[in-house]
């Protein structure tokens, strides 16, 4: 004689869904199956089955072969391009840095400058002469990181959201920017004031990072 199911044996709604999805371990699956056999609420699975059916009744339209070919060609082209990354920080004696940098650079940490060149129809330019062994610069999206903790002073510099532009980053080389001054940053460290020497886009957006005095970043 089958024991009538009672509320204490009732699986949770998540477990019912997992049962339908085939995701339960053997023991739990057997328990749920037994409950379904004797419970008047066993019809609870039917709405889930119907939702699955509605989903299956409207599959995604498939792109044309030409569309796929186009995507593949663009992937091949994009993965064949060299990734432009910053070279090692230029020595202070490299041409192009103003005398301000030489004076302030003794105390400043490494300057990280990203010059964003938004020029329609262009791709990343390999500005370094000749082939180079480069390391890929990873730029994290907001889904790539999890903030574990932060200091209150950093809240004003925490960037949340998406990059301001879509497109490749072109990292500045010596001579691309001129350091005009360095002044105290309201958060921590020093904030450089730079001038973009890129003639085609002198007002192009740039990302500058304040740097601590005591340590390189």
């Amino acid at each position, binding site marked *: 004689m089958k024991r009538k199911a009672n509320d204490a044996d009732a699986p949770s709604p998540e477990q019912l*869904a*997992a049962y339908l*999805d085939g995701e339960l371990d053997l023991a739990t699956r057997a328990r749920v199956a037994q409950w379904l056999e004797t419970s008047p*609420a066993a019809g609870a699975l039917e709405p889930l089955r119907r939702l699955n059916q509605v989903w299956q009744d409207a599959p995604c339209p498939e792109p044309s072969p030409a569309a796929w070919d*186009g995507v593949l060609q663009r992937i091949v082209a994009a993965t064949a391009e060299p990734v432009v990354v910053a070279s090692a920080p230029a020595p202070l004696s490299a041409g192009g840095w103003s005398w301000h940098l030489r004076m302030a650079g003794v105390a400043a940490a490494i300057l990280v400058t990203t010059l964003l060149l938004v020029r329609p129809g262009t791709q990343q330019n390999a500005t370094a002469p000749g082939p180079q062994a480069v390391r*890929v610069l990873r730029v994290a999206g907001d889904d790539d990181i999890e903030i574990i903790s932060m200091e209150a002073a950093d809240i004003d510099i925490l960037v949340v959201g998406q990059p301001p532009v879509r497109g490749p980053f072109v990292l500045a080389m010596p001579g691309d920017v001129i350091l005009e001054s360095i002044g105290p940053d309201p958060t921590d460290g020093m904030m450089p004031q730079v001038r973009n020497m890129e003639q085609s886009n002198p007002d192009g957006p740039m990302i500058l990072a304040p740097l601590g005095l005591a340590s390189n970043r």
Partner: protein
Amino acid sequence: MSVATLSPLLVCTDDELLARWSAGAREALEELFRRYRMLAYRVAYRLLGNEADALDAVQEGFVKVLTHLESFQGRSTFKTWLLRVVSNAALDLGRQRGRRELLSLEAPDTEDGDWAQPMTGDDPGLGLERADLRELLDRALATLPAAQRRTFVLHAEAELSYREVAEVMGISIGTVMSRLYYARQKLRAYLGRRLEREQLAGMLTGAV
């Protein structure tokens, strides 16, 4: 087809194909693309709702994984890693291109809630064609919070197991189950109201 006529790439594992591609074999990239393009596309399509954007997300996803192979250290399968990147790319694309939520997320999510706007283009006299149903599903998905939508799409469209979904999203299996539960509740509530005319609501409502 005899074994002798099969491309050797067909029997290569994903890792082997990645290694071949890293060594310069373009055909290895083409095989990887052929294997996973539709799966990636279906996830992106469900997240974005249109073919053009979905193809862009697929393209961006493949480019990212292939140019960041050092990030793939074998801690997951290539499939789950690719889908993670593609779904991220799709969500980014949706935000950047201003994919407006069709219904406010603040709208009540109870079955008796008063939804913001009726379906457009619906003709009460017509049955739901597949395209209409797809549009209806797109609208329903748009009512979900991003995390629930992504979880549901990865499971229902990409047919990933709970463990694989957890791996893609970096969450626990328990969180996957919870998100799927709430996503299904909202979807059933939304679809039930709008399919009521098609006499399908009774098959969707229920105690779960």
